[in-house]
């Protein structure tokens, strides 16, 4: 089986979110970048499936040169090779177009990625790639087993889950508990240095909904503390001041 995992390069979940002075770009000063947490679940599951069924696992990222350490980390975790599509990921449509093109070229049976990136939270790329390639797409997938050409999945729905069956090839946007995050070991880190990482150019520049300006929410006021022996005061505040009851 040929597996493709799409990886986002995103600020660590503890990062302070800031923008440049003119509010047109994310300010990367002092920010540590990681594999998107949802993509990390997809990658972990992909490594397990590759080990279980044989075949190959390719990690792909649409990003400029600074995302390479993130792709190398995917190789250290267990991907066999990597593709970087050399462009800033301008919007979901732009990214989906690139992935669809290279996924088609590579003839992958299973394409996994996170349910959404944690920067733009769009959650659209898997569905777009699915429609572009005429493959079924599923998200958010929390369990995925491959038996021959049949894929058994659980998809999270409001207040529960739904169990599904479909045939390869397909695309899934993943979330926990599909697998446990894998931490690269020394051998993985060493071998990642020499695994192939191919850089290719974008196949289209087309965009549909680029983000042009950014804004931070207004700062939160100080908390109002209520004494633990006077909880009815809290009820009054919620009712009369916050007006949420």
């Amino acid at each position, binding site marked *: 089986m040929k597996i493709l995992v799409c990886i986002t390069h995103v600020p660590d979940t503890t990062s302070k979110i800031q923008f440049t002075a003119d509010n047109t770009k994310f300010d990367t000063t002092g920010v540590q970048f990681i594999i998107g947490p949802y993509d990390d679940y997809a990658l972990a599951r992909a490594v397990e499936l590759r080990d279980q069924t044989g075949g190959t696992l390719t990690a792909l990222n649409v990003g400029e040169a600074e995302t390479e350490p993130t792709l190398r980390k995917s190789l250290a975790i267990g991907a066999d090779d990597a593709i970087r599509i050399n462009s800033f990921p301008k919007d979901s*449509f732009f990214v*989906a177009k690139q992935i669809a093109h290279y996924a088609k070229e590579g003839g992958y049976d299973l394409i996994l990625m996170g349910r959404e990136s944690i920067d*733009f*939270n769009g959650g659209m790329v898997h569905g777009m790639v699915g429609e572009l390639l005429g493959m079924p797409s599923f998200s958010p997938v929390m369990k995925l087993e491959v038996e021959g050409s049949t894929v058994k999945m659980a998809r999270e*729905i409001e207040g529960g889950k739904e169990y599904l*069956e479909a045939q390869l090839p397909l695309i899934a946007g993943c979330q926990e508990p599909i697998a446990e995050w894998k931490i690269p070991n020394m051998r993985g880190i060493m071998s990642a240095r020499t695994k192939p990482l191919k850089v290719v150019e974008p196949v289209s520049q087309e965009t549909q*909904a680029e983000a042009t300006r950014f804004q931070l929410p207004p700062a939160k006021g100080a*908390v*109002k*503390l209520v004494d633990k022996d006077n909880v009815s005061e809290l009820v009054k505040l919620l009712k009369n001041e916050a007006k949420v009851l």
Partner: protein
Amino acid sequence: MSVLVYIEHADGKVKKTSLEAVSFASALAAQTGEGEVVAIALGTVDSPELASVGKAGASKVLHADDVRLNDGVIQAHASAVAQAFASVGAKTLVLAKSSLGDAVAARLAIKLSAGMVSNVVELPKTSGGYLVKRSIYTGKAFAESEITTENKILAVKKNAVDLKTDGAGASVEKLSVALSDSDFASKITSTERATGEVLLPEADIVVSGGRGMKGPENWGMIEDLARVLGAATGCSKPVSDIGWRPHHEHVGQTGVKVAPSLYIAIGISGAIQHLAGVNSSKCIVVINKDPEAPFFKAADYGIVGDAFEVVPKLTEALKAEL
């Protein structure tokens, strides 16, 4: 011309978040002069229930009552909605963010060559360009995205607009859609759903417990408090990781993102990844025995105290008041 809204229903009722999407579309149509608001409903649901969508601002509901659409088969729903979009000559599709809605809309973005924006928090600016404000970085910031295509899809975040309730009734028309076997290539074999409870992603009040609750046997007091408030229950990630609570209750960066009017956090420290899932709440109450817990910095109201003492008292006080 009209704005099309993809509405979802569960247990015979149109979802409240879908009614919010209709309200959003109604305000949008008034702003852009796009004419009437038409909703599309798929699968078995009563006509009177569909007619009530008019209150939120739809003048017509198209109903594709093919029983095969009762299951949320993503591709089939996308095909059906695409046909409805063409049949009413819409340029804009509005929907509420949801597990099914997100998956369907992403495919529709390609089918309809429509620029799509998700997590929309307010009506777009449409005088010169088409600028849509969306929540990004899991609620920590906003972006303005410019849609440059003629067709557009807006997936609306909860609480983006007030629910409209003063519209007239809507007419309900059957719509027959052509669906092929390939639309049903995937099969939903079974569904597990908590019934009779308030669903977390749609709840107006959420009561959440963290590791400070010590064990699953202590969730009774969380549930009692939730019941008095008509609230949904949630939890922090470690709580669902250890299996004290089901995964669909896990709130935060890697779990459900909630946007209730009131979020009550009990025995949760307020790690940044948890806050990422709750920062769209209108009002946050924190109950924690540690005055230094970071959650207090993100709270509107707080009680420093032992949850086992405070929560039952709060439930009693609410019973007396409500």
